[in-house]
């Protein structure tokens, strides 16, 4: 169990929030009864399969589906011709603006295949065998084009251009020719040359990272049914059923009210399921076939055709005085976007220096398209990459200055009242507290042996708020149901029930949470951005508070006293009127039983746009041992402190921290997309795309720091994304100290480490 360091003041004694009840969906998960995307079936269901481009970049000259359609059992064949040709349009469907045309083209290529694995056609048939046969019989003539994947090669003026209409945005003068650089962005403050002039030590580094995948164990899966009257049903493993509805509606030109999306249990997302790949295609197939269609991706398809995050190049110049004041920073970020614009370089730019109070900086970001799968969000998108470079450079600076790496960070730390590098002034942040937590932890003082090293790194994520709806219904026996629209990817539904139980004064067992479909609850923004406990929790709490207000009103009515004389305590209405001392409390069950005669059903729904999400900070310590013979890096010990505001369910907060750390370690040591010279992914499977396994990791110790966010009813801040931000540099800094050489190219796989050791 982790340490919980409470840096806030709790006025009220909480009974449920902060405890560790068994999650309400736990039994179905441990017995195999929970229904994930591929577990659902509908009568008459067909199997849908996608034909994918074998070329990284090619013009689609012609597609002939006649032989495919003639295969017995084939009921539908679709290509881009079966989808509306959308004009380029920005739309808010996920969390940030998506270009709908790009989204549609990514689901089904039109005119050009832009990466190996790009969907070019799809079939629906009565069996997987018939579908596979039909896929093989679709004849496609390609004109293969030169491709480019490396980000700097894609930026070169003579690079093969992916999109003839893409002109770099953000330059002083609009360029004359198209390019693969979709956008250039700059954030700046102060006087950079003066800042470097004031520095005693200036260092310049170049860091590189490879594309990595979110690696959720459950492949994308959906079942879609397009009825003859135009009403659609979709069952989908997704982070947002409303997002799925919006995108399907837009891509197929349908009305939202005609699409009902039910969220399946989701086997991991991490941002990779905040978009659609299969659902619009499955609906198009179903429409043509007149039957429901099930589509499940293979693992290979997941790697080849769903967004990894960017590979990147980061150049950083850092200046500091001998006393350890960082006076200037100049950072250039070049991020792969994959086949369509939209890498997270913007967020990378805004988070890069977010932990540092630096007066003079410039951060330049390039969003670059490449012939690789369109990049999708991956847990704190953009931030780990930038943090890898910044935290490595700061660590190198600490070594150069002969300063403890925690002390150097403390000396330049942001705190309340400081303007963030991305603009707003920080309030109620717990960054210094996380540094203090790791500095004072026994891990930091533990001795190290030969070939071992210790690395420190910090990280930041904004955490978002956004639109959420929640309903609380009181049942006739005084139990409650909490309804939200947020898929549960990490245990959030337990936290929703806990917050409602706390407000209602009920034991947790009497409050059941469900995640509803798009027709059964008001709009909710998807699960992601570390927003659910904050924003949906806020809606749940407010709905429960409305119920309590209503219960007090009814009790007062029953007792014939003023409403202010009825107070809610421990799940019952208590009469405070001194003139009526004989009145006994009325429990929730008692009031619920009389609902018909006191105003009708007791229910409340709250829709809100949650403002004031509190950003999160983390500080990590990592110990490694490097085997000089094999170059293998063993993680010996890992401690991660994070300010979470308030841990609603501490076990799931710990889980988020541990999971994010594990992904960061994989990113640092082993994970990468390997492409052959034809631009095809060579390691599209879990054997060679090496994610951490149980024997790779030690226990991961989380330290929960609580600096309350006053804007959330229980003080919560988002948790899920911060943990993946520090580990890349925490591991790299540990390796630096173990082998005495700065590694700047991720992943730090054994051959690279061996090469460095040999050259030492």
């Amino acid at each position, binding site marked *: 169990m982790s340490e919980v360091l409470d840096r806030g003041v709790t006025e009220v004694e909480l009974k449920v929030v902060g405890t560790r009840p068994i999650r309400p969906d736990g039994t179905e998960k441990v017995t195999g009864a929970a229904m994930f995307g591929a577990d659902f079936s509908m009568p008459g269901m067909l199997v849908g399969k996608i034909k994918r481009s074998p070329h990284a970049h090619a013009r689609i000259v012609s597609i002939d589906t006649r032989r495919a359609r003639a295969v017995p059992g084939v009921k539908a064949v679709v290509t881009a011709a079966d989808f509306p040709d959308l004009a380029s349009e920005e739309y808010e469907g996920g969390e940030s603006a998506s270009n709908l045309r790009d989204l549609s083209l990514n689901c089904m290529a039109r005119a050009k295949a832009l990466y190996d694995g790009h969907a070019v056609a799809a079939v629906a048939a009565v069996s997987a065998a018939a579908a596979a046969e039909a896929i093989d019989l679709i004849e496609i003539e390609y004109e293969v084009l030169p491709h480019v994947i490396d980000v700097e090669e894609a930026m070169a003026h003579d690079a093969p251009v992916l999109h003839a209409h893409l002109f770099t945005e953000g330059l002083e003068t609009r360029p004359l020719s198209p390019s693969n650089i979709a956008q250039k962005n700059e954030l700046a403050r102060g006087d950079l040359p003066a800042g470097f002039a004031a520095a005693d030590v200036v260092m310049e580094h170049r860091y590189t990272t490879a594309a990595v995948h979110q690696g959720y164990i459950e492949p994308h899966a959906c079942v879609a049914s397009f009825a003859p009257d135009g009403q659609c049903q979709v069952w989908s493993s997704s982070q947002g059923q409303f997002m799925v509805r919006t995108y399907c509606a837009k891509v197929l030109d349908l009305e939202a009210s005609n699409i009902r999306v039910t969220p399946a249990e989701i086997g991991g997302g991490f941002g990779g399921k905040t978009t659609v790949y299969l659902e619009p295609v499955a609906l198009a197939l179903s429409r043509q076939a007149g039957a429901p269609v099930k589509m499940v991706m293979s693992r290979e398809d997941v790697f080849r055709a769903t967004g990894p995050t960017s590979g990147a190049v980061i150049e950083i110049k850092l200046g500091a005085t001998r006393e350890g004041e960082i006076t200037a920073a100049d950072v250039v970020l070049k991020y792969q976007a994959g086949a369509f614009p939209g890498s997270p370089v913007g967020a990378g730019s805004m988070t890069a220096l977010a932990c540092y109070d630096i007066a003079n900086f410039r951060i330049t970001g390039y969003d670059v398209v490449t012939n690789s799968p369109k990049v999708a969000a991956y847990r704190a998108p953009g931030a780990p990459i930038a943090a890898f470079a910044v935290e490595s450079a700061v660590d190198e600076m600490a070594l150069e200055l002969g300063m403890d790496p925690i002390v150097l960070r403390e000396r330049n730390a942001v705190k309340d009242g400081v303007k963030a590098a991305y603009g707003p002034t920080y309030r109620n942040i717990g960054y210094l507290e996380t540094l203090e937590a790791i500095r004072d932890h026994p891990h930091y003082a533990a001795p190290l042996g030969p070939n071992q090293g210790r690395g420190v790194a910090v990280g930041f994520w904004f955490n978002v708020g956004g639109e959420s709806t929640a309903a609380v219904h009181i049942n006739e026996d005084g139990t409650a149901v909490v309804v939200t629209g947020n898929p549960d990817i990490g245990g959030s539904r337990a936290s929703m029930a806990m917050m409602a139980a706390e407000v209602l004064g009920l034991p947790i067992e009497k409050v059941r949470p469900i995640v509803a479909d798009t027709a059964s609850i008001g709009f909710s923004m998807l699960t992601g951005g570390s927003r659910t406990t904050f924003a949906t929790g806020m809606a749940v709490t407010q709905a429960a508070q409305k119920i309590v207000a209503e219960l007090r009103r009814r009790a007062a009515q029953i007792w014939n006293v003023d409403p202010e004389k009825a107070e809610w305590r421990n799940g019952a209405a208590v009469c405070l009127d001194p003139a009526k001392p004989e009145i006994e409390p009325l429990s929730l069950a008692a009031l619920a039983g009389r609902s018909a005669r006191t105003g009708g059903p007791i229910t409340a729904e709250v829709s809100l746009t949650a403002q004031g999400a509190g950003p999160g900070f983390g500080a990590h310590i990592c110990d490694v041992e490097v085997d000089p013979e094999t170059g293998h890096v063993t993680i010996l010990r890992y401690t991660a402190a994070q300010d979470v505001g308030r841990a609603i369910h501490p076990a799931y907060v710990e*889980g988020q921290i541990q999971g994010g750390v594990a992904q960061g370690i994989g990113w640092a040591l082993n994970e990468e997309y390997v492409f052959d010279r034809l631009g095809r992914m060579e390691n599209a*499977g879990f054997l060679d795309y090496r994610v951490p396994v149980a024997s790779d990791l030690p226990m991961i110790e989380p330290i929960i720091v609580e600096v309350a966010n006053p804007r959330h009813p229980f003080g919560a801040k988002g948790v899920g994304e911060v943990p993946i931000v520090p580990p890349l540099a925490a591991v790299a800094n540990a390796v630096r100290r173990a082998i005495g050489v700065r590694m700047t190219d991720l992943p730090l796989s054994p051959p690279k480490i061996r090469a460095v050791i040999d050259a030492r």
Partner: protein
Amino acid sequence: MKRRHVSAIVNGDPVEFLTWPGSTLLDALRDELLLTGSKEGCSSGDCGACSVIVDGRLVCSCLMLAAEAEGRRIETIEGMAEDGALHPLQRKFLEHAALQCGFCTPGLLVAAKALLEANPEPTESEARYWLAGNLCRCTGYDKVIRAVMDAAAEMRQARRL
């Protein structure tokens, strides 16, 4: 091509199903027997989400042909709880919050059950290496290992009584 008839014992019950020669045991469990607790994560035996026990041996059901199940005794996640009572491993996973999305959980539980049948007193390292064939992307394995060690201790204790 005709489908083949297979008879086997699944979770203690005799079953029969039809299968294509090329279909896997995982396909048969999920599509023919509607036991969707075993999951498909990779189809190449690398993730362990499809783990089942065949004649007492831990196996990736995606690597076994359905036809090979003829006459065999197969245990899946659906058979782990007995008469409505959760297996100690299942209970400990819940107590320790050793699952987040829950997708890898059936495979991990079956593999852990096989571990404790082979080695009732594993060290942390032995547990980690045995479970290295079960990928989890959510938990970082910390609480999973704690749950397994705790269940092992409880099961040893129960045996002594």
